[in-house]
């Protein structure tokens, strides 16, 4: 793929083509979860971080490795436990007896794609260690700041907080995740295909990502991100996104509404959605298509609705029907 593009039209074509190729590559091994792949890809290009929720065994690690394989990126994985310390994530400096000097040992956070598994098993102090790097893309170790690799993205998974030994994620940290994506069980046919793929001609319990050929370079991802920022967003679309987010603060049944960061994330995600359709401008449909993953972890429904068995997605879908689409 040629990273040097000539004009806006070429850039648009390049971006749409690149997004399509990455998506297709991931779907080779991560089967039957198109919505999750779509969310992940949009978030990755929009320079965000993803919160994944789903039962174990649905391929969260595979998803990360598949995305990294697309651009020959590095992956890291941290299993969060109650005794995990902040320095176990960021790294620390130790005294080298031979040289009589302190040297820094960088933690697993210095990678392209970091899978923070079961993030809510660690106490808030350790969770907070991720905050700086998620927001600023840099880490402080003993008063020295280090830039993390680019592109960088955190994919965190969490257990339901009702389980024993879990700490609810602080709202500040939740807000720093651009989207929350839900991985559900595959249907019967898809699951059969996964089993075939994983066991064909070998003894294996999982799919591997060796089949994925790199389709984009890290530099081209930067170009992709730059092109995304040039996608045009009309005032009426921005207003539409803001109205949706503001509605979460006044809507009945929602006890905690989304912050302005949600409006920003909505537009950023909608831009990538427009690029996927090779469109140089965002339309209200793009906003609507990203509203659920952007908002579902940023709001809390009232106890009444929880008792009635209403889940957040249902509440958000109702909310979207109450916000008028732009017509002028």
């Amino acid at each position: 793929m040629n990273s040097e593009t000539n004009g806006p039209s070429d850039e648009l074509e390049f971006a749409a083509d690149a997004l399509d190729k990455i998506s297709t590559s991931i779907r080779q091994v991560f089967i039957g979860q198109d919505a999750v792949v779509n969310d992940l890809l949009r978030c990755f290009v929009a320079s965000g971080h993803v919160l994944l929720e789903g039962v174990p065994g649905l391929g969260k690690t595979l998803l990360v490795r598949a995305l990294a394989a697309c651009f020959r990126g590095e992956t890291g994985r941290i299993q969060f436990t109650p005794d995990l310390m902040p320095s176990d994530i960021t790294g620390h400096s130790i005294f080298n007896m031979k040289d009589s000097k302190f040297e820094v040992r960088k933690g697993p956070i210095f990678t392209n794609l970091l899978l923070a598994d079961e993030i809510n098993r660690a106490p808030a102090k350790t969770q907070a260690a991720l905050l700086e790097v998620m927001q600023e893309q840099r880490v402080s170790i003993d008063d020295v700041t280090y830039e993390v690799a680019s592109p960088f993205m955190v994919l965190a998974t969490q257990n339901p907080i009702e389980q024993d030994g879990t700490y609810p994620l602080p709202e500040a940290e939740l807000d720093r995740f651009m989207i929350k994506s839900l991985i559900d069980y595959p249907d019967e046919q898809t699951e059969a295909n996964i089993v075939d793929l994983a066991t064909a001609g070998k003894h294996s319990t999982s799919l591997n990502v060796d089949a994925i050929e790199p389709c984009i370079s890290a530099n081209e991802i930067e170009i992709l991100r730059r092109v995304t920022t040039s996608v045009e967003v009309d005032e009426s679309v921005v207003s539409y996104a803001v109205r949706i987010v503001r509605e979460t603060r006044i809507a009945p049944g929602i006890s905690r509404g989304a912050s302005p960061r949600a409006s920003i994330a909505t537009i950023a995600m909608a831009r990538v959605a427009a690029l996927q359709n090779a469109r140089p401008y965002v339309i209200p449909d793009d906003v609507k298509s990203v509203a659920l993953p952007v908002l579902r972890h940023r709001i809390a429904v009232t106890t009444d609705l929880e008792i009635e068995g209403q889940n957040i997605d249902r509440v958000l879908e109702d909310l979207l029907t109450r916000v008028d689409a732009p017509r002028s």
Partner: protein
Amino acid sequence: MQIERLQIALRPRTMWESADLGTKLAMRWFPPLLLSWFVLALPFLLISFQIERFLVQLIFLWWFKPLYERAVLMTLSILTFDGQITIRDLLRGFADTRLWFYLSIFRFSWRRSENTPIDALEDVDFNTQAQRRKWLYARDNRAAAIVSLCGLMTEIIMVLAVVFLFYFLTQSDFNSAYSGVLKILNINEITGTEAVLLLVAIFVAMGISAVFYVSVGFATYLNRRTIKEGWDLELGFKRIVNRLGIFVLAGLLTMPNIDLLASEPVRSTDTILDEVQSAPEFNQSKTVTVPAHLSQFIQGMLKVEDVEPRRIEIGIGSRIFAWILKFILIGALIVALVFFFYRFYTTYGFTPLFGKNQTTERPQTVSTRSLPTNLIQTIKEEWTHGRTREALALLYSAAVVLIDKEFSCNILESDTESECISKTGDIAADSRDAFQDIARIWLRLAYGNEAPSEEIFQSVLLKFQTHIATA
């Protein structure tokens, strides 16, 4: 009162201990106490069934609670003093004039549980009753408020429990039971059968809680009298006198010359005292050394503890602080009650008393929009004057409204362009194609700033006139 016939051990107790004693009294004589309550309250329940409005039924049944509680109090007082329950004794409690105050202006008094024993059981006049209340409960009037609050909460919980139990036992699945409970709690839409069920639930809850409420108030009353009037000491002295009487009698019977004593000439008490005091043995003194531990033991035996709780003199600052704290607590209680009722009303879909309406608004369809009468002319004028966006916005909005009206596509105000196109998928092909063209050029112009050419505009306008506006 014949305190020697009391069936409970008397001793000065704390507020909580006396409440505990009241609970034990209620548990011990629960059947007769509950029966006395039901005998008196049942006619009121039957009368309430004749009332048409549920809320009035509820208030009627609840308002006469002090009346039913008198029966419980009288029964309890008779049982506590080991008496025989007679109709005459039971009715004696209703002769009190203050009862009518409890059924009118003092109905909301939260000190009813501890005041009623004074009014009903002590045969004193109206003013003396007031003085007795003030004296008896001076500096210790917290129990009644707490008991009233607990009684109220217990009643509410029991009513809900009875209703829940009924539905969960009679309905086949959880959802039906749950919706039945919600329905019955919505008193605006309650049916006749549900009203009867709810009234019976309230009746049962009131009866059970009344037994405990009255018993705790009665035990508090007994405790205060024990502390203030030294009932325990009086009872103790009476027992000692009884025992001493037996010893004296036994001693007299065992004396051999009892008849000789009676035959001696009678001397006055003063003469005997003078003789004793003038005897040389009377002025003799002897020092006895007692071991220290024995001395402490004797002093401990002789020490008389204060029956009355020690009073601590407090300054004016502390009193003001106490008053402020009291008002804050009362305010907090009122706020909690208001909040509780507000949440109850808003949760179960009643008309909210204030604040935002929690009822979910139904999404509006676009067919409610009004369009200009000379629509085509207005669109053309906007286009001619260079207001491209306004012209196409009107064209698109009009197309949406007219398509929705004509084909009943149920297009909502929240539907985006793609959703509108999707909803018009099943309408007549010409109208559908015309609408899709309009939507596409609108999308390009509105969000991509790509204005259509004159030819394209005229073409879609013609399609609009032919396939949408005409229809």
